[in-house]
């Protein structure tokens, strides 16, 4: 029992020292808070795959009442605004090229005639393919507008009405998807960095030997070193949570304790990865390189931006070693769906697995290296 109390005290003293050392430099204190807030806000606004305010060019070769009406209908849609109406395609091309417009809408000369004849009048949409996802969305959006207009023109309701309901995110706002992911992501970046630097920094400054001659056990050192990064990570995740919930008003459907537990588990696994890197690095420059070499692929494979489902099978297998993937999934589901602990439990397994491997690994590595 007293052994255990001693152990706890060891951990507490070390964690306290780490924390003090972390926040000693006022520049570091600023660094831990301000960028997170700025990023949180910027990300909230920038993380946008919804179509808003798309600039386009309209070429009306028909110059008829019908074509004017059609184009007015497009212009009336909130997602689009016309930046120019040149007479020919060459001028329009330049606008697309320079990025001033993202699409060219060409109404053919025969437009009114074909409509009157009950034929189908083809309207050409040329989208800027440099962002294929956006191009696809523009195309589908215009098709929807065209269908609405046609129906209104013919005075008939469409033969089939598609009633769409979207659960958990009724307006399909990408912000709702990204902000909860960002909760996990910002903590991930920060925790990796803090944990990654912790041992390497002591080694470089010569304090690590001094630490090793104290009665602190390997386990106590690891846990003591893991606590501050986890705490900072949770704090930053909370900052983003508050921004998401109260500034952007993304409704929180889940249980707060579940969210915290998930983030905590995630951060433990991340800290393990960070400490392992720290243990094998000779200096902080190496830490940085290893971190980036691991972190960027981890972010890309996490499903933050592109769905994991679209990845080839081999890469999907690789994502099991990426705790960020499961953290993002779990946090999104807790936040938006209100998923319970039981429902997201499968996400915990890979995270715990990573933690179970990396924590002992880092302990083994740092002993061997010293």
């Amino acid at each position, binding site marked *: 029992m007293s052994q255990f109390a001693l152990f706890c005290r060891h951990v507490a003293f070390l964690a306290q020292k780490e924390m003090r050392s972390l926040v000693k430099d006022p520049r570091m204190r600023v660094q831990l808070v301000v960028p997170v807030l700025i990023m949180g806000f910027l990300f909230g606004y920038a993380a946008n795959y919804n179509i808003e305010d798309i600039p386009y060019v309209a070429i009306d070769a028909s110059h008829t009442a019908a074509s004017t009406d059609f184009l007015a209908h497009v212009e009336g849609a909130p997602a689009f605004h016309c930046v120019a109406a040149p007479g020919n395609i060459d001028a329009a091309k330049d606008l697309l090229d320079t990025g001033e417009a993202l699409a060219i809408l060409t109404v053919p000369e025969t437009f009114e005639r074909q409509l009157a004849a009950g*034929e189908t009048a083809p309207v050409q*949409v040329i989208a800027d393919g440099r962002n294929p996802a956006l191009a696809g969305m523009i195309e589908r959006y215009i*098709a929807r507008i065209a269908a609405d207009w046609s129906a209104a023109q*013919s005075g008939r309701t469409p033969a089939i009405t598609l009633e769409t309901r979207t659960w958990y995110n009724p307006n399909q706002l990408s912000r709702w998807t990204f902000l909860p992911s960002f909760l996990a992501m910002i903590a991930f*970046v920060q925790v990796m960095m803090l944990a990654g630097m912790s041992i390497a920094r002591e080694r470089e400054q010569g304090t690590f030997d001094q630490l090793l001659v104290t009665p602190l056990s390997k386990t106590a050192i690891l846990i003591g070193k893991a606590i501050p990064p986890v705490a900072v990570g949770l704090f930053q995740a909370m900052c983003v949570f508050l921004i998401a919930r109260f500034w952007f008003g993304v409704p929180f459907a889940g249980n707060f304790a579940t969210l915290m537990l998930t983030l905590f588990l995630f951060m433990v696994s991340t800290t393990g990865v960070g400490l392992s890197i720290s243990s094998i690095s000779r200096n*902080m420059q190496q830490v940085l390189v*290893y971190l980036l070499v691991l972190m*960027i692929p981890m972010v890309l494979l996490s499903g933050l931006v592109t769905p994991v489902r679209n990845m080839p099978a081999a890469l999907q297998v690789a994502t099991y070693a990426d705790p960020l993937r499961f953290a993002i999934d779990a946090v999104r589901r807790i936040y938006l769906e209100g998923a319970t602990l039981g429902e997201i439990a499968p996400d915990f397994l890979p995270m715990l697995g990573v933690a179970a491997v990396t924590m002992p690994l880092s302990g083994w590595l740092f002993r061997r290296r010293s």
Partner: protein
Amino acid sequence: MGGFSRRLAALTKKETKELLRDNSSLLMGVVLPLVLILIIGCGMSLDVKDVPTAVVLEDHAPTARDAVSFVRGSDYFAPVYVNSFQEAEAMLRAHEVDAILAVPPDFSRRLLAGDAHLQLILNGVESTSAMSAQGYVEAGVRAFAAEFAARRGASAGGVSIVSRIWFNDANTSTWFYVPGILMLVLTISGVFLTAVVMAREWERGTFESLFVTPMRVLELILAKTIPYFVIALLGMLLCLVVGRYLYELPMRAPLAAILGVSMLYLVTALSIGLVISALTKSQYLACHISLMVSFLPAVILSGFLFDLHAEPLAIRVVSRLLPTTYYLDALKSLLLAGGSPIVVAQDTAALMAFTLLFLALAFAMTRKKVDA
């Protein structure tokens, strides 16, 4: 002048040796770019594919089956046929499917009357997938409606959309991300490594002995940046080669122009690194600051992940404060579109201005003094 080139050569040699002794530089220069470009090529696609969709056919008429037949054999959907709506809902809740397409019992009857309904329920947690899925279902339903009308001899009339996509012939997402990856490789090597190696010398006190030699600040800065310039450029070229041969990246503009703009951006990145290190003089802080002020914004705000055209005005304004934005814009034009000289010229001018600004700052802040 003899002294200048001799000292520069000596310092550069020293820097290069230090760089090469550390295996991690190889990781940075070669492995990371390759890993990134391969992940991008294989794994990053914003387009949805194989959305698991529960199809509920409560109407057993052949027309009803026809109406939703577009989901079968489509790349976009992976249909699962279920018997009841409740079952489908349970599957959606359990994340076994991401969408439900339901055909109500009276569908075929009401179709004849011209006011049939179909139900689509989506999981909006991944909003992008939901949006795309909805678009594909709509298109499928419209196509069926038109075909159904044509079958009955009645022309649907109305407007049809004929779409073409420019600047991206194969329409692969890969091309969209390649310029971003090039940008990342340059940013990381440029900002991070430079910031850290400079800060390391401040921290270890190696500058004190170096300063009291005939060495000039210009020589020091050049020597510090040359090896990282080469490493970064190497990584970028590697990405370009892979992009060209594996993904048939168009590269519409001459290679010289692409390299020219990239080198200019690289100089900007290097000078940002120099400014950060001079400001912090600590590796630890330099790492954190580089990450927060250069890496995250480069990813989020530059137009790499999120298209700036679709952004609110405020974000567009903020993004214009980052050199990355201009570089990415120019690079996209040069690689994918024909490289309108005006766009590229504007971007280049902006990059020049940034470079001059940060270089001036770096020189002003790196003085041969050790005052705390």
